[in-house]
């Protein structure tokens, strides 16, 4: 595991969640080291997305979240959310054109590389958002998120609307990004086999509690 040194003191590079409590969920704690991927399952409504929203600081809740030893309160909301790349199950597009959703000063070569990796044409950046298919929306939403260079990825049903070839492309892209950026990944999916493929540790939420399991299925 990579342990970066920080101004003399040694700090674990990781995402630490301590005693998160929101509505019926928790308190629950979890540490994901950077470069590790963790899977999360549970019945619909058990609080998987609620946990991700809490980590991204979208809802008021109890508990602490610490990134690479720095508590979340040291960052403003926008700074924090850029580091925590949360991708909700349904992507939102507010502008008329895809390009409006990317910063002007993004790394264009990198975006083009990601588009190619996900079997999308560069011309799609000029497309109107109304004409995108659900699969295109989801893949573009991933690229839009990665453009922020997040240090953590919270992926909620990322591949739900994709065919098997595209699922493989997305999984490969995430694995590559994770290697390159040494980022911690939390996957939510109902596809047990996918979770077994992409994650090294597996958790399930049952009655508001987080339980670790050996496999991504019972």
């Amino acid at each position, binding site marked *: 595991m990579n342990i970066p040194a920080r101004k003399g003191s040694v700090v674990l590079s990781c995402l630490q969640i301590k005693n998160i409590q929101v509505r019926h969920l928790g308190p629950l704690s979890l540490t994901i080291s950077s470069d590790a991927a963790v899977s999360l399952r549970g019945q619909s409504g058990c609080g998987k997305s609620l946990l991700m929203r809490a980590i991204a600081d979208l809802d008021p809740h109890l508990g602490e979240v610490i990134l690479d030893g720095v508590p979340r309160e040291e960052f403003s909301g926008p700074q924090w959310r850029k580091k925590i790349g949360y991708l909700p199950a349904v992507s939102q597009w507010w502008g008329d054109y895809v390009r409006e959703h990317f910063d002007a000063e993004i790394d264009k070569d990198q975006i083009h590389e990601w588009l190619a990796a996900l079997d999308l044409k560069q011309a799609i950046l000029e497309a109107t958002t109304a004409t995108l298919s659900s699969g295109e929306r989801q893949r573009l939403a991933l690229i839009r998120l990665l453009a*922020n260079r997040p240090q953590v990825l919270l992926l909620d049903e990322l591949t739900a609307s994709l065919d098997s070839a595209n699922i493989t492309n997305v999984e490969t892209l995430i694995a590559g990004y994770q290697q390159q950026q040494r980022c911690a990944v939390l996957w939510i999916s109902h596809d047990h086999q996918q979770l077994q493929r992409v994650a090294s540790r597996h958790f399930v939420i049952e009655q508001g509690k987080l339980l670790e399991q050996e496999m991504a299925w019972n």
Partner: protein
Amino acid sequence: MELITLTSWDLSLAALLVVALAVLSFQMRLGLSRSIIIAALRTVVQLMLIGLVLKLIFNTTHFGWVVLVAVVMLLAAGREVMVRQQRRFAGVQSFALGTLSLFISTVVVTLLVLTVVISAEPWYSPQYAIPLLGMMLGNTMNGIALGLDRLTQTAWQQRDVIEARLILGQTPQQSISDIRRESIRSGMIPIINAMAVAGIVSLPGMMTGQILAGAAPMEAVNYQILIMFMVTAGTGFGTIFAVTMAARHLFDGRERLRLDRLHKAIV
């Protein structure tokens, strides 16, 4: 020209038209008959009362009385802004927001006009101060109420979009900028339209009243232009202030969208 005095009989005839409208809306099941009758009764009672009050105040020209009437009008307008919101901030916040916005926009503009433009002697002469403030409050109230209602309703409907923008690292101001702009526009457009058609399509109410009361048309026109400019400035500044403050208050210190601060009005 001589003023023709209206009798109770004349007003009763006009009232019959409103009753006819209420009957029709009942038959068409518009669900408005009750509102029409209550609003019409309120018009009669409230106007009669203010007529009596003005009659008393015009005789005294006491500063304290003018302030008292102004405060009552302001609070009533603030309450009206609040109750017109389908989704409003909890408790006193909603009332305070509307009243503060009205105060800042209408009172400042009215004071400016009374002291600098009209310069009556004394400047708070109730004959000028109270009708001007009333015109200002009535119109500004509409703009602020429309703008706020649009803001809270749209934010509610588009919460996923606002949060999607927050998730990508946008600030609250950026994530709600489109909605805020549209809300301010919807508050200001009616008064801008009214200015654009004044005199061609519509003869504004105040001017009509003055002409009916026997004033020279050009005098009435001058006052109407003054009123139009005051009302537009007041509505514009009031709506911008109210919508900006409300948009800010939809987020908390951690820059999270907090729609739980809004409560749905029970209609």
